[in-house]
Each structure stands twice: as structure tokens, then as C-alpha cells.
């Protein structure tokens, strides 16, 4: 029995590597074939996957079903967009801060602001659980959404165009492959980071908080700060994904903050496998494939997405990961 457990663990690790390898190769090949559109499409998958990996930490491992992660995704996007705008206009931020178009500096801002906002939202939302938690995170995200709509300086309802992508050190981020490589590196880092976190002592506590918070409290660990910490880390990762997404599209709009966006990040996880390391990557891939190829025939492609989601939830509760490598293992 122990043996089969190890085999499954090995299979899952192998699958994780295969998925990442396939994504990398696809980007290389399409770039080599001079299909910039498809390279960007792979970057889109990678960015959605990062957002999903972020949410998975809260939703999959911590059992916190946040329907408000678009707030972090969108804020990450807006920080990237606003920085780019000020930089191109050579104006400074509200607080008189010099504007920058360096992604690394922008991401630092994203990390700080998303962490603070997640701390605030989490402090309040985590006093509730279940449906109430879902609704309260949704409510916070909606507040951010309407705030963005009603702030004309940064495009309001129309959104904000990014005239040229933010820069990553000295690299040409307008080159599709360079931009893909940046996204892909971030994905690798977040996957690695979350694989360390979930296997650490903190990760154990977080997962027990999901399974049985009475047990966690009984051994002397308060579930609330454990969950809050995970919620903040989760939000930060999703925020970075948002910053990349704005640069990819050279556009940010309140759509990135909408509840549909939150729902889509959840769908990546549901499709791929809740609480599985590669779940969101698989889910995001399937999502973008459906969006692109069925979306090419009909604008009602979400009907098919719904159908696929229905099938996965009904017949493979545990997502694609479960279909391929079987039940989740705890090492």
C-alpha cells in the first residue's frame, strides 16, 4: 500500500513536469514558427495558471473559497497599468512617488498593496466561513470593482491602455518569447514556492485547518492566523499574475476586477483539481483552449465550458489531475 502511495506521488510529480515541459515547448515551437499570437496565448495560459496557483493555496489547501480574488488580480493589473501610464507621461504617482516601468519594482508594489488589502479583507472575512465567506469576499471585490469604474483618472469604465509594456531589467518585453519566459519563470517560482509551503509545517497546519479546525485548535494552533497568512500569500501571487496580465494585453479594465474573473480563477482550479499542485495549470490550459478554439466558432463558448465543468465535477470530482493520476496523496 505504501508502495502504491509512492508510485502515485511519483506519477503526480512526473505529470507536473510534463505539463510544464509541454507549455515551454509549445511556446518555443510557436515562436520558432513565427506565430506570435500563439506565443501570447501560451503566456495567457501561464498567467491564468499563476493566478490559479495563488488561489489554490487559499481554496484548495486552506478550504477558503474566495470569490473575491479578482480584486487582487485586478489591482495587480491596475498597478502595472497606472505605472506604465505615469511613466509614459513622465508624471509621478499620487503620493509624489517617481513612476517606474520596471516590472520588478512594480511587482514589489503589487506585493505590498495586495498583502495589505488581503490582510484587511481576510481579517474580516475569516470571521465567517462557508457561504458567508464566499459572499463577503465577493462583496469586497465588488467594492474594488465599482471604485475602479468610478475613478475617471485611470480610465474608469473604459479601462486603461498601456502604450508600451513595462520592462524587465534590460530585456525587450515586447518580444513574445521574452515576455513568455518572464511569465513562465514566475509560474515556476510560484509552483515551487507553493509546493514548499504546502509541505512545510505551516502547510500541514493550513491543511488541517481545512480538514478539521477543531483538531487544529485542540493541539494549540489557532486556525484563524494560519488561514489569514495563507490568504495573504494567495492574494499576493494572484496579484502578480494580474500585473503580468495587464502587460500581456497592454490593457487593464474593470473586467479584471469583476466577479466573473473571480469565478474563472475558481474554474481553473475546479477543472484541474482542487488542492493539486498542477491543477490550476491544467485547468487554465483547458480553459484557454476552449476559449480560443470553440470561441473561434461561437461566442457562446462558455456553454461548452459549462458542460465540461459539469462533466468534470460530476464524473471526476477532483478534476483532470484525478482522472490522470488518481486520488490526492498526503505525504
Amino acid at each position, binding site marked *: 500500500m505504501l508502495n502504491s502511495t509512492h508510485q502515485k506521488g511519483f506519477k503526480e510529480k512526473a505529470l507536473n513536469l510534463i505539463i510544464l515541459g509541454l507549455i515551454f515547448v509549445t511556446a518555443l515551437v510557436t515562436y520558432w514558427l513565427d506565430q506570435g499570437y500563439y506565443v501570447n496565448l501560451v503566456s495567457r495560459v501561464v498567467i491564468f495558471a499563476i493566478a490559479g496557483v495563488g488561489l489554490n493555496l487559499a481554496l484548495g489547501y486552506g478550504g477558503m473559497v474566495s470569490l473575491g480574488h479578482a480584486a487582487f488580480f485586478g489591482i495587480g493589473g491596475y498597478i502595472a497599468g497606472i505605472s506604465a501610464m505615469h511613466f509614459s507621461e513622465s508624471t509621478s504617482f499620487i503620493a509624489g512617488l517617481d513612476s517606474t516601468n520596471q516590472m520588478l519594482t512594480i511587482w514589489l508594489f503589487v506585493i505590498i498593496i495586495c498583502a495589505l488589502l488581503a490582510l484587511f479583507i481576510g481579517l474580516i472575512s475569516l470571521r465567517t466561513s462557508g457561504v458567508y465567506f464566499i459572499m463577503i469576499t465577493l462583496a469586497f471585490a465588488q467594492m474594488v470593482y465599482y471604485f475602479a469604474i468610478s475613478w475617471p483618472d485611470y480610465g474608469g469604465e473604459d479601462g486603461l491602455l498601456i502604450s508600451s509594456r513595462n520592462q524587465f531589467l534590460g530585456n525587450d518585453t515586447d518580444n513574445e518569447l521574452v515576455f513568455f519566459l518572464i511569465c513562465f519563470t514566475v509560474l515556476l517560482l510560484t509552483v515551487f514556492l507553493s509546493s514548499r509551503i504546502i509541505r512545510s509545517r505551516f502547510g500541514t497546519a493550513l491543511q488541517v485547518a481545512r480538514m478539521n479546525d477543531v483538531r487544529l485548535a485542540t493541539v494549540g494552533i*489557532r486556525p484563524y492566523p494560519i488561514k489569514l497568512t495563507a490568504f495573504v500569500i494567495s492574494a499576493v501571487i494572484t496579484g502578480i499574475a494580474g500585473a503580468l496580465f495587464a502587460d500581456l494585453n497592454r490593457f487593464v479594465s474593470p473586467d479584471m476586477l469583476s466577479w466573473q474573473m473571480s469565478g474563472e480563477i475558481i474554474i481553473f482550479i475546479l477543472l484541474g483539481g482542487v488542492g493539486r499542485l498542477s491543477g490550476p495549470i491544467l485547468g487554465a490550459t483547458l480553459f484557454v483552449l476552449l476559449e480560443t478554439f470553440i470561441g473561434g466558432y461561437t461566442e457562446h463558448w462558455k456553454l461548452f465550458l459549462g458542460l465540461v465543468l459539469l462533466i468534470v465535477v460530476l464524473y471526476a470530482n477532483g478534476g483532470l489531475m484525478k482522472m490522470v493520476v488518481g486520488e490526492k496523496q498526503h505525504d
Partner: protein
Amino acid sequence: MTNSTVDTSNSTTLGSTVLKIENLTKRYGALTVSDSINCDLKQGEIHTLIGPNGAGKSTLVGQIAGWIKPDSGSITLNGTDITNMNVAKRSRLGLGRSFQVSCLAMELSAQRNVMLAVQARQGSSYRFWKPAASDQSLIDEADKILDRLHISEFKDTLASQLSHGKRRELEVACALALQPKVLLLDEPMAGLDPASTQGLINFLQNLKAEIPILLIEHDMDAVFQLSDRISVLVYGKLIFSGSPDQIKASPEVRKAYLGDD
């Protein structure tokens, strides 16, 4: 009258007071579930609470563990007032417990359940990098405790796949991993087969010198074998407290609890 004589004899033969419950009162509307309960636990003893169903045992346990807030009264652990502390903090101060209905991380193995408790005792749950499952300091200590309860052979079994009885023993193991000052065991024998029951009785008998135990139990054989003191809870009131022999001899207890036969 009987109470005071028992208490003095206890304090000379047994150690100092570890857990003290004073005037604890809890009401749900008009119903008083805990009616100024005074009760204590001394070093080296097993003090058992018995009482018919609905006597308020679970509510009392809930208040001691920290899930239920009393309306008035106080609970003191080793001289520290814990009345307003949350569950986790009480555990860290040394209150270990097992539950009437198993409360484990069912998706984890028995070993991982104990390792979680070891990790909690070490006070190190905000480490984000090193894998916990292969952490030798957690494994070694967990294995020692599993061994002590003779459930080592089940260490790789998921808690969800353990028998009812083994889960109870695993809960005791988790509680011990906290190196508690006091053990609060809520019906640990319920659902155990006779051999396991006897095994657990022997185990607790040996354990009490190390950790005093406040026991809630229905199995009267076990209660009389194990207890140094027994208190009887009826309708939220402690009506009697004394040695097993005094309990057996008490007409009030007979009437209220053991039946007239």
C-alpha cells in the same frame, strides 16, 4: 460534610491542585446547565465525572476546553486563570484532551496526526520551507508516543481508516504529544472492545502519576478501577464527590444515578 473530609485526606496523600473550577455557571435561557460547579484536579490523581445523560457533562467539558463561555465562575490551570482564553491558548498552557466523538485530521495518517501535535508543542507552525513529513524531530517523538500507546503498527494508516477504538487511542496519543499538565478525557472507553478497554485502563493507571486526568466515563467498571475521586453531576449540579467506595455507599448517588437495585 463527607466532601471536606475526603478533600483533606486527598490533599495530604496527593499533590497540589492543578485544575480548579470555581462557581462555574452556564445557563441556556431558563435552563441552568452548569450550576455553580466547584471541582478540582490534583497532581497524581484521576478524578472522574459521572452523571446521567443530560446532566451537563459535555457543557462542563466544553467550558473547561474553551469552546463554551461560562456565564460566571472561573477556571484556573496551574494558578493561571484560563476562563477567557481561547482553545488553542489553553492547549499550549497544558490542557490536553480527547473528544467524545473522534476529532482527528481524517485525511492524514495516524503518525501525521501525532506529528501535528508535536509540531504544535514545539511552537513552530510558521515555518514555510522545510518539509514537515520528513522532519526527523517530529517523526521520532511521534513514533515514541504511538509506541507507548501500542498503536505503532497503524502509524501509516489514515485516521479515516482506523477503527473507532484506534481513533480514540490516537486522540489520547495526540493529547500526550502536547506534554500536557492536565488531561481531559471525554469518554475514552466508548466503543472500545473489552481487551482495548483493559489496555487503556492499565495505560491511564500508569499515566496518572505523570499527568493528572479529569475523566468523563460511562463504563462503570473502568470508573471504579481507575478513579481516585468520583464526582456526580446531576441536572448541572455536583451532588456528591468522594472516593469510589464512598460513591458506592452513598444513598443519594444510588438514587440519582446508579439506580435503586
